[in-house]
């Protein structure tokens, strides 16, 4: 019985509410309702935002994971290309050495270039091509009778691609 009584009280109170409640009370509840709705909207917005943030993040991480492995090797490969450049400079003077030494040097050059090529590091030809800053770094310009202005005259160091992307631009001189 004790449990019943308060319950009845509440029913009565609820029944009388529409007539007895102060308009101020209704206003207060309306305001509170609006405020709660606004809060819910904001919270939901934050929720969606975070969800979207995370989704974008995950997608990018996936994209980056592929290139991250490449980026890790990049520094290493670039420093090997420096050595390859040195070899090419050496080979330009190779005739000054005995034939047997020259043959040995060429073999070492191939031993260095081979594994790089196997990794997808490929040189590209620049001489005779129109100068393109996406592939070439200009070191100077020269007078040239044979080449049209804006054409690469010669390479000072070779350019390399790694797969599709540019690994290192070619250092070139361009016809004036």
């Amino acid at each position, binding site marked *: 019985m004790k449990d019943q009584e308060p319950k009845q009280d509440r029913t009565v109170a609820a029944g009388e509410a529409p007539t007895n409640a102060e308009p101020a009370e209704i206003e207060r509840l309306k305001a509170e309702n609006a405020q709660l709705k606004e809060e819910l909207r904001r919270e939901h917005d934050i929720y969606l*935002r975070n969800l979207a943030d995370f989704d974008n993040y995950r997608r*990018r991480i996936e994209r980056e994971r592929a290139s991250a492995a490449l980026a890790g090797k990049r520094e290493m490969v670039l420093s090997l290309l420096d050595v390859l450049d040195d070899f090419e400079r050496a080979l330009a003077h190779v005739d*000054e050495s005995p034939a047997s030494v020259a043959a040995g040097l060429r073999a070492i050059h191939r031993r260095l270039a081979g594994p790089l090529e196997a990794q997808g590091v490929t040189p590209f030809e620049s001489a005779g091509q129109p100068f393109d800053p996406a592939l070439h770094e200009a070191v100077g310009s020269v007078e040239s009778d044979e080449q049209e202005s804006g054409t690469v005259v010669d390479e000072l160091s070779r350019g390399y691609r790694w797969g599709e992307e540019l690994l290192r631009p070619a250092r070139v001189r361009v016809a004036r």
Partner: protein
Amino acid sequence: MAKAVGIDLGTTNSVVAVMEGGKPTVIVNSEGNRLTPSVVAYTKTGEILVGQLAKRQAVLNPENTIYSAKRFIGRRYSEVQSEIKNAPLKVVAGPNDAVRFEVQGKLIAPEEVSAQVLRKLVADAAKYLGEKVTGVVITVPAYFNDAQRQATKDAGQIAGLNVLRIINEPTAAALAYGLDKKKNETVLVFDFGGGTFDVSILEVGDGVFEVKATSGDTHLGGDDFDKRIVDWLADEFLRDQGIDLRKDRQALQRLTEAAEKAKIELSSVVETTVSLPFITADASGPKHLEYKLTRAKFEQLTADLVERCAGPVKQALSDAKLTERDIDEVVLVGGSTRIPMVQALVRRLTGGKEPNQSVNPDEVVALGAAIQAGVLAGEVKDVLLLDVTPLSLGVETLGGVMTKLIERNTTVPVRKTEVFSTAEDNQAAVDIHVLQGERELARDNRTLGNFRLEGIRPGQRGQPQVEVTFDIDANGIITATARDKDTGKEQKITISGSTQLSREEIDRMVADAQSHSEEDRRRREEVEARNHADSVAYQVERQLQELGDRAPTNERARAEGLISEVRQLVKSNSSDTARLRQLASDLQQVGHGLASAGYGQAAAGGAGSQASPGGAGTGGGDDVIDAEFRQSK
């Protein structure tokens, strides 16, 4: 969702960063680099190149390639005479004495050049983020006047950007270190970049920064250090070989690159070798350059450059009417602050204070700008700053070890469930001992609570499945629930305030675990070896029971001998893990023998199942039973 980014629009290089998951991150440009050269080129074909590409064609097109537009932005022609001398550009006076670059017969304002840089940065950012960039915060030196600030803002508008705010570079750097949360502190920002040196003194209070003084040298930077090395190498070579490499453009370029590399190396090692084979050739044949450069020699070559930084620091202090003792925080910005001698100078000038340098000095300004952008775009306020659990949470399992359910530094809210089982036959209740800490054994960790789940249906050990769930809400309140999967009976406990340990307490607990890791690992191994041997003994014992008389006498005798030895070792808490492992393996052999001999099939399931370390056999289904609970008597 559109994003707001922060941009460090530098004299030599620019950087763009964005808030991501509540933290600022640098955005790589379309060429895959974190720094974008602040260089813009107008080519003969009418193309506009920005960044690395502009730089690559600069020697072919010097009069139409604009470097360092920042030195001219918002300034009058009459003010920049000294700058014009250094630039290969044609600089002229425009309307109202404003600076204009004459490019291919057209007049271009520095704002338009900076707009090109901004446009590229934002386009690359949008590509990287996969969404539109709406707002930007751009940084400027603290000494920029109103005209320079307005012109920088105009550059943003020319680029079609909504410039949320222009903020000072030193302020951005301080923001990146969270110094805005400090109360009434004085911060000295030492910004030593590629081509400029700025020193600023800020006062921070209530999240507001006030610039008290600035000083610097607009033509002093890392490039000057490179030049000193180049000259030294070239002089040595001239003395040894009689050839001046500075006259050979290609050799000079190789020399400059090698010099910069040597400088960078000397920040971490005390000696490096500059090696440039076939650098040149004369009638006698090819020549190679190879010189050893020590840090000491490098410091001798550049001592006067470093000393030039001292004057502006002292000047700024005196302008702010402060002494070195008044400086609370020092922030290092710019790549040249990696040079040990520069760091030593900063320490000397600031009373030996340890500078803030944990954030990459090339990126710190952009990162701070990104934080400001996040705040202004309402992101930072709205982003829930998610907490992490400072310590691991778990339960005690058989042998007094702690089995972790949630590892430390897990972002909350989080919920983890694992299934455990009983340690004895017909165990009617399990005790859940909720633990917090990093140590292997339960008794070394902190007890958060205890409760008991009763009414488990009697069964063999390892059969009942008790699902234990830990749930931590965003406020750090932990609810631990245990549920018997068979009867559905459930019991839970709520623990609040577990994360209210002080920083020191947490650090101590983590350090404790580290210092005890070796001995903890050994003790855990002992427990696991005992549990494993005990579990195998139990299985073989059951096998024998089921086989009854069918088990061959000699096999039975051998098994019983082994079991009794295991029991003895377990009972005495033996630490002889080698012996326990040997016994377990012998018993397993015996068990396999009994099973494969075809004596009853019940045995095969028991002994053949793979017991996880410290655990009973698998209970079937997908659930892995990790460990067992004992019922305290």
